[in-house]
């Protein structure tokens, strides 16, 4: 184990700074997490941070009509409830208009001009008593402030997880993501090694080209690539059963779009590996292939892991490439597309986004956490210069 005290930043300040970053970086996501267990209706009327405490909300209720009256002890009465049972809500104050909600306190009685008496209790039940029979065909509106206890619901998650085809979409996403992460790593690792340790014509040119290709907007590539796929499907390859829209097509497309970054990251890392190791291995008569497999690949694990996680994230969260190259036929949708379907055409159910975002986040986060230990250079720490 390496000396745990090698950097001596005064502990307190260090922890404080990191804590500040962590809080700042987590706060927005925390908002999303809290929002995902709230009612859709509450999302747009109160801030997510208020979800943890009891809130007050204005509401109105129309009383029962004369039809609902009963005669008890020569008195006519109408009973009713503001709240549904077990809602936990209580009445703070109430009134007869939307602008005077604090006219009466809970338990107060409003004596009306006709002599009838209306009492609203804290639990939201009310009694309206009169000596004369009630005759109104339409109830009157009562306005009140309700105290709403914090309430959380898993309904958003239930809707996402119970959605039809979500399991299938999950499997599809995995089917797309794993090869689309692994294939570019493999191809890029070989290319990166060649670009950093082999001598051949045009090496600098290829390197420059790859950096340049990093910037090609994905949207520009969709039509030419899909055209090529279609052409392949129509010509001789088609008779071999090549479908323009297939997993293979998606894997290769993701490989193509991810390859520049992969080659770029890996080349920079590999070029930083100590020259002496390569040279002594060459002296021993090892071929480049052998050096690559036995020395460079194991040494490059941190870089491979870093790229793997980025590519994984990108493919996992991608919607566009999957839709274009895999199509949307039944049973072919990936997780992101399936979630999008739940949202509705005009985003009718956008509260689904909150829980949906967390459901899609779980897998990449698990991958990241499980790969943490690969991000650090193991074997050669101390002898490798920063690459």
């Amino acid at each position, binding site marked *: 184990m390496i000396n745990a005290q090698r950097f001596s930043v005064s502990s307190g300040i260090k922890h404080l700074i990191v804590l500040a970053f962590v809080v700042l970086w987590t706060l927005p996501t925390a908002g999303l997490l809290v929002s995902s267990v709230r009612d859709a209706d509450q999302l747009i009327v109160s801030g997510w941070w208020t979800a943890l405490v009891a809130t007050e909300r204005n509401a109105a209720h129309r009383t029962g009509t004369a039809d609902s009256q009963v005669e008890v002890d020569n008195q006519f009465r109408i009973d009713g409830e503001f709240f549904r049972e077990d809602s936990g809500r209580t009445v703070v104050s109430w009134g007869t208009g939307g602008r005077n909600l604090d006219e009466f306190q809970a338990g107060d009685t409003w004596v009306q001009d006709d002599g009838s008496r209306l009492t609203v209790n804290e639990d939201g039940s009310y009694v309206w008593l009169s000596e004369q029979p009630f005759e109104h065909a339409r109830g009157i509106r009562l306005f009140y402030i309700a105290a709403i206890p914090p309430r959380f619901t898993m309904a958003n998650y239930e809707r996402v997880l119970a959605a039809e085809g979500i399991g299938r979409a999950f499997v599809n996403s995995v089917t797309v993501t794993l090869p689309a992460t692994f294939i570019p790593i493999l191809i890029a690792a070989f290319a990166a090694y060649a670009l950093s340790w082999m001598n051949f014509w045009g090496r600098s040119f290829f390197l420059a080209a790859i950096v340049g290709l990093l910037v090609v907007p994905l949207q520009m590539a969709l039509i030419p690539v*899909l055209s090529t796929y279609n052409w392949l499907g129509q010509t001789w390859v088609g008779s071999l059963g090549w479908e323009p829209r297939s997993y293979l097509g998606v894997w290769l497309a993701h490989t193509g779009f991810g390859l520049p970054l992969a080659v770029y990251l890996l080349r920079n890392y590999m070029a930083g590996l100590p020259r002496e190791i390569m040279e002594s291995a060459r002296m021993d008569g090892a071929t480049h292939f052998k050096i690559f497999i036995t020395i460079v690949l194991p040494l490059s694990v941190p870089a491979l892991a870093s790229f793997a996680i980025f590519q994984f994230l990108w493919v996992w969260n991608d919607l566009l490439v999957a*839709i*274009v190259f895999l199509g949307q036929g039944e049973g072919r949708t990936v997780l992101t597309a399936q979630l999008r379907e739940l949202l509705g055409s005009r985003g009718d159910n956008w509260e689904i986004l909150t829980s949906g975002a967390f459901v899609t986040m779980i897998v990449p986060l698990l991958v990241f956490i499980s790969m943490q230990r690969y991000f650090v250079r193991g074997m050669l720490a101390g002898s490798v210069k920063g690459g």
Partner: protein
Amino acid sequence: MIKKRTLAVAITSAALATGAMAQDLHFPIGEGPFSWDWLEEFENLDLSGQTVTITGPWLGGEQDSIRRVLAYFEDATGANVDYSGSDSFEQQIQVDTQAGSPPNMAIFPQPGLAEDLARQDLLVPLGSDAADWVRENFSDGDGWADLGTFENSSGEEDFYGVMYRVDLKSLVWYVPDNFEDYGYEVPTSMEEMIALSDQMVADGETPWTIGLGSGAATGWPGTDWIEDLMLRLHEPEVYDGWVTNDIPFNDPRVIEAIELFGEFARNPDYVAGGPQAVATTDFRDAPQALFDIPPRAFMHRQANFIPAFFPDDVVVGEDVDFFYMPSYDGKDLGDPVLSAGTMMAITRDSNATRALMQFLQTPLAHELWMAQGEFLTVHLGANTEAYASDVLRRQGEILLGADTVRFDASDMMPAAIGAGTFWTGMVDFVGGASAQEIADDIQRSWDDL
């Protein structure tokens, strides 16, 4: 016939075995207010083994609805219809058609996009018979037939698109209880509506709630306002000329409409939260102001689809209602209605696709979605009894009873305008730019095309 049904069942079970989903028919055949007779001609058609693919903008509940409608076609003909919805429909259909692998049929939310593809010969013409059919069977049929008529690359006009599912935009939503509490009456003319707004201001209340926010499409609710006001200020011909740019965007008559919108949206007394809130409030959140207590606003102009964004416990027709956005008594322009809708067009021809197109033109295909809600039609043959609710029926009546029906202008303008500078212009206008400035800007971008 029975034999056919058994065959269909056999195919369905075969499809099941290969992993496809079989859908139960939502409404039992032969019952209810549906024109089941129309099914017969499709039952005599054997399309088993054929697949029709459709791409459209409908997702979620709407996707469920259309799939239920299509199930009847599948059941009758044995064909397999594969509908997939996408929120990036515009992008996807462009990529698919340009790359040469379009679906059989596409449902366009904007005729402008269909026109674009037709001009590149990427749509299949339906022929003049289809256009004539629309003329005869749709209310105000000439208008709908013209809407689906585009030029191809050599400049020849043909009919390409049939409307299926129409939206009604000229609606003002309000909470009857609030009107009752304050003693307000539903206005029947534009003059009354403005007087009512002033009355509300005098009472210390805020009449309107307006939200232009819509993520990537921010600004569109403003374009609807302008369009509705255009129809109430000027002859329909002015509107038509404005859509095609024969009347420039910075024509005084257009500017008049923009300024009238400003009298609502830029008036701090008139809008909840003040003008600053108008541009950034999401259109989905805007109606919330109606339901607050005390109400933050009393009226909200928005299309028939907005109840999807009302709070869950609100019952449309009881807790909230709508009235037709009235026209000026002082102007003799009748009762104009602003509409929008989705257009079906064939992007890759086949027998089964043509048959499906036929099917979707039957009254039955309209009724089957009407009965599921959230669907209005201008099909004269469709039984209005099939509407899922009185609210829908009343909206359908406004649509059928209008003196003038005009389609959403921004959806017909070139997308660079109608889904570009027009939107931006609305946001800038609400933000304080003058009507003349933004109209000049929009016209400049039109000249620049």
